[in-house]
């Protein structure tokens, strides 16, 4: 099992207890009075059986507060996720912090920011590189690239999962688009792993049929679930943090109710992916202040009050088109806030140019960022040995030095983190070594990974199963006229 990072202090709170209570009460009010639209008759039937008020014409289910709270209690505070290699299994929840790789539609040139469709080889290589990065614990759906040269759009999700099964033994999330969940479930089961199933809302307050069908399929397979509601403040959610917290909360608790009705006790991780709208362009403001505050409110409610694990997407993307200062600070401050406010998983590595692009060079740089953030929440030991009181007396004032002390030798590596690709050279050394930037150094690490790292291979039999399932998927989509 992957250890992740263990937070050792109470998460920070952005709301008072009475504010939390007010948000929760308002959420229950939305669920009971306005309800959630579920675009699926089987889902509405199920919710009706459980005591919800269902209107089949509008496809809206109004959920009684007592049932919402019962479903919150039914959801475990932690759950396991089985990877292809048992040493990469996860236990999500509690004080554990994991990192999920980010994604992007296309490949971006690390130096120029020019974007183009990734080749299948580039997709496989990007997966292999993240397999080698210690801080990537789990992969999202259709990642690293949403588009792969020569792969039909409808086949992207299953093809992408097949690549992740072949090039990494770490855990993965499934996707929900157009029946892909049928084939992704089969692919995972063929190699003995679970997926983090997915059910994503169409904000405000609605779940499309694909999302509900995916939830039926993944919970039917006994997989834990990743629930999400990617709303945009001022668009599909109120412009205020408090208002957007209420609608996002209602959407996600709607999914909790649906999933616990399908299969009681299913492990769930709630995703926060709420961004303010750019009121000039209508786009998303990734890395904005509103993202931080929303994530903090969400983590406080879910991890501290509901005791349901959380994942935050605020650090997944940056509006910067380049791997530069902006992408660095937008990802770092949002990820740090997530970690300090108790997120169990942070989506971080490699995504840039809003959601349009990904580059493994950035994933390598983000590996250092993830380590710094993870080590921050692990804090430090305070005991007789680490306080070093006797040693402080012994060394005394300047010119006393702690450098030659065994205490320094014993503890410094544990207490420090040495970034792998950050430039720490003196100015003269930097000149003499060719004025390398962090991108140069990350490219060097990437080349080394590509020439040395070998992911755990799959068997020839598994390889055949994967090809067979992909062929079944092609037949299925051809029959539906989608291919």
């Amino acid at each position, binding site marked *: 099992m992957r250890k992740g990072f263990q937070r050792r202090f109470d998460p920070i709170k952005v709301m008072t207890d009475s504010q939390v209570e007010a948000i929760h009460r308002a959420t229950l009010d939305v669920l009971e009075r306005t309800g959630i639209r579920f675009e699926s008759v089987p889902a509405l039937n199920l919710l009706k059986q459980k005591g919800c008020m269902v209107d089949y014409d509008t496809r809206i289910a109004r959920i009684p507060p007592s049932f919402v709270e019962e479903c919150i209690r039914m959801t475990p505070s932690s759950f396991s996720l089985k990877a292809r290699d048992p040493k990469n299994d996860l236990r999500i929840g509690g004080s554990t912090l994991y990192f999920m790789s980010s994604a992007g539609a296309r490949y971006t040139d690390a130096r120029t920011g020019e974007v183009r469709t990734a080749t299948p080889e580039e997709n496989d290589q990007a997966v292999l590189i993240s397999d080698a990065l210690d801080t990537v614990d789990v992969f999202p759906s259709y990642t690293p690239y949403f588009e792969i040269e020569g792969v039909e759009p409808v086949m992207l999700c299953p093809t992408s999962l097949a690549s992740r099964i072949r090039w990494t033994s770490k855990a993965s999330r499934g996707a929900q688009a157009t029946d892909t969940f049928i084939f992704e479930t089969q692919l995972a089961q063929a190699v003995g792993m679970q997926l983090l199933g997915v059910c994503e809302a169409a904000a405000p307050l609605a779940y499309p049929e694909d999302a509900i069908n995916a939830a039926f399929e993944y919970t039917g397979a006994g997989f834990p679930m990743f629930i999400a509601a990617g709303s945009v403040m001022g668009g599909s959610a109120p412009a205020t943090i408090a208002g957007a917290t209420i609608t996002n909360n209602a959407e996600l608790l709607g999914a909790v109710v649906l999933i616990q009705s399908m299969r009681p006790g299913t492990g769930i991780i709630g995703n926060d992916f709420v961004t303010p709208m750019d009121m000039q362009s209508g786009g998303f403001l990734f890395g904005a202040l509103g993202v931080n505050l929303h994530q903090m409110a969400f983590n406080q409610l879910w991890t501290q009050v509901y005791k349901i694990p959380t994942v935050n997407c605020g650090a997944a993307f940056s509006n910067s088109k380049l791997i530069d200062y902006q992408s660095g600070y937008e990802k770092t401050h949002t990820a740090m806030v997530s970690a300090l406010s108790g997120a169990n998983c942070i989506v971080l590595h490699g995504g840039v140019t809003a959601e349009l692009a990904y580059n493994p060079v950035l994933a390598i740089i983000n590996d250092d960022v993830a380590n710094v953030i993870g080590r921050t929440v692990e804090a430090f030991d305070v005991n007789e040995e680490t306080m070093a009181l006797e040693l402080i007396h012994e060394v005394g004032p*300047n*010119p006393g*030095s702690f*450098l*030659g*002390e*065994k205490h*320094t*030798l014993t503890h*410094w590596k544990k207490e420090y983190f040495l970034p792998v690709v950050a430039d720490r050279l*003196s*100015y*003269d*050394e930097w000149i003499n070594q060719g004025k390398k930037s962090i991108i140069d150094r990350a490219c060097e690490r990437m080349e080394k990974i590509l020439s040395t790292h070998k992911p755990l291979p799959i068997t020839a039999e598994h390889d055949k199963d994967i090809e067979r399932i992909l062929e079944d998927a092609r037949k299925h989509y051809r029959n539906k006229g989608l291919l």
Partner: protein
Amino acid sequence: MNEGLLAELKGAVLSFDKDKAEEAARRAIEQGVDPVSCADALADSLRIIGDQYSAGEVFIPELFVASRVAKVALSFITAEMRKQGKNVRSLGKVVIGTVFGDIHSIGKDIVATLLFAEGFEVVDVGVNVKADDFLKAVNDHKPDILALSALLTTTAMEQRNVIEGLKRAGVREKVKVLIGGSAINQEFADKIGADGYGATGPSGVKVARHLVAR
């Protein structure tokens, strides 16, 4: 027997064990092992640590602790060598200190340790050292190199005062002057008439080797 004790000495330095190093040095002397071989074994172990440091495999704390362990053993070994009228092999002698007005010691300590690990005999005269005291140390110890450290921009000019003092006393040509510190660059070193400058500890050691090889 000798081989075993020499390996123990080396092993004590490489495992950073001061007590073992002292005990192995005492037994080596008691059992009549040639003290020059003992000194060579200690120098070998420091060279291994020094190489590991250059390769980025170990870091300054390892280098410092290993040097401290070696120094403990070496104090017994050199006493025995003096008794037997034998000399310690070294690349050269260095007097090192931080200049007057500056009490920063870490940079100077790092260079002193790196020089020791490299095989130089090092006389550390401390911090906040006046030009006259550097001159006295040069006259007393007759070093091959005088190494001056100054962290602050404001104290960097004190390095020039030390060099001027050496000139006035007529000993400038008898010693090479190596300077270092975060405010120092080659242009400054040339301007004040130093023989060499190191941007970092390891580069200072390279310059020191170069200066004694001339």
